[in-house]
């Protein structure tokens, strides 16, 4: 059985890539900016460093690109942008996620026909 911490860790790992892509869909961001935006969404990021290997994998999968920008008065920074394939991936994930979240929610709350029957047999109050 997956422990509480383990289940959440696996969930975070699974959803981090689409979340990064969703943030980049709004506008290009540099590393620390992405980290802070993800950290602001409570519980999404357990450690800042994990974002960078993920960004590199997304880049290798051609879902994001990166370029150095040397804005006046700022240090040179590497900005990450989403590609067309990345946008398609987020779009597909949004649709899948809505269905998936609804299914998981229904099972967890015993709202499925089997779940309602089992709950009744176990004497759970509904």
């Amino acid at each position, binding site marked *: 059985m997956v422990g509480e911490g383990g289940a959440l860790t696996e969930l975070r790992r699974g959803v981090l890539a689409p979340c990064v892509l969703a943030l980049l869909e709004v506008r290009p961001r540099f590393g620390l900016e992405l980290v802070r935006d993800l950290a602001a969404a409570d519980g999404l990021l357990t450690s800042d460093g994990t974002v960078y290997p993920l960004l590199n994998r997304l880049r290798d*999968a051609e879902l994001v690109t990166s370029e150095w920008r040397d804005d006046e008065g700022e*240090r040179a920074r*590497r900005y990450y942008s989403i590609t067309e394939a990345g946008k398609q991936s987020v779009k597909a994930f949004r649709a899948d996620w809505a269905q998936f979240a609804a299914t998981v929610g229904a099972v967890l709350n015993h709202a499925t026909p089997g779940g309602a029957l089992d709950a009744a047999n176990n004497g759970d109050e509904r």
Partner: protein
Amino acid sequence: MSRTAVDHGDVRVYLYRLDIAMRGLPAVQYRELRDQIIAHLDDALPPEADDQQVAAALSQLGSPADLAAEARADFGPTIRAVLAASARRKWALIAGARTRTKVLAAVIVLGLVTGGTYLGVLLSAPLIEFGDSSVPWYTRDASRQVFATADGAQQVTFPIRSGQRQGFLFGIYNPSNFTETVRGPVTIYGTNAIFGGGGFDKVEMGVSVPNRVVAGGGTTRDVAFTLPASIPPHQYRLLRITWLSTMCLEGKGSGFLIDNLYIRVRVGWFTRTDVIHLGFGWGLSGPSTHPDTQPGPNYNKCL
């Protein structure tokens, strides 16, 4: 001169541990992640960050081992699915092509694969390694070095001579099957970063020339040094580095740890930065002896 994140001792130790944890990863992947972490810390920390701020930022980054494990992780299911779909689309395109086009495409792909494999082998050639021997280059430093043991490792420290030239002689080894050519020290934004931070100016570097003893023989003083210098596969050389010590080590008991050496090395067509891990064996000890003698607000302060 304002400090960057890499100048902080704790950051250098973190990067050293990251270097160790990332061993075995392709050099390109390893260097890219290291650069990203340094850029992250430069952005996250103020120029004169104190120890507490640095410790918090490093803790938030996660352990080097976890980071390396993440870098080694396979693609997640979402990305893998996208890649698989992309591969299916490419195969459908190939299946629908005419024979002549297929042959041409196969020749091009074969050429690209062969060239790509060669490039990959070059880029992932093992980095030059520390050859397990090193001495201070100047007699004055050698005569004042102090040997100590900490955490089971031997440490050798000698006092900084601010405003004067100091140096080391290292043994280095080329573990790869390619000739690797040492090109010189690494500079970042015009600053020598030979040991990962500032304070080492006018760096001069040379690699020993085998069988070219200048006179007498028997001591390192008689060896000729040159740069750039090619090191054939699986051979040792001596690397001499001298610099003008310009860092300020304030107070008795202060020190600067030298654990990594950054050099530019050419392998085949590519020039890359090699990180030679020296362990925790070398240190410059304070206090600096280079006060500002000009009247003004810095009078008699360490420069």
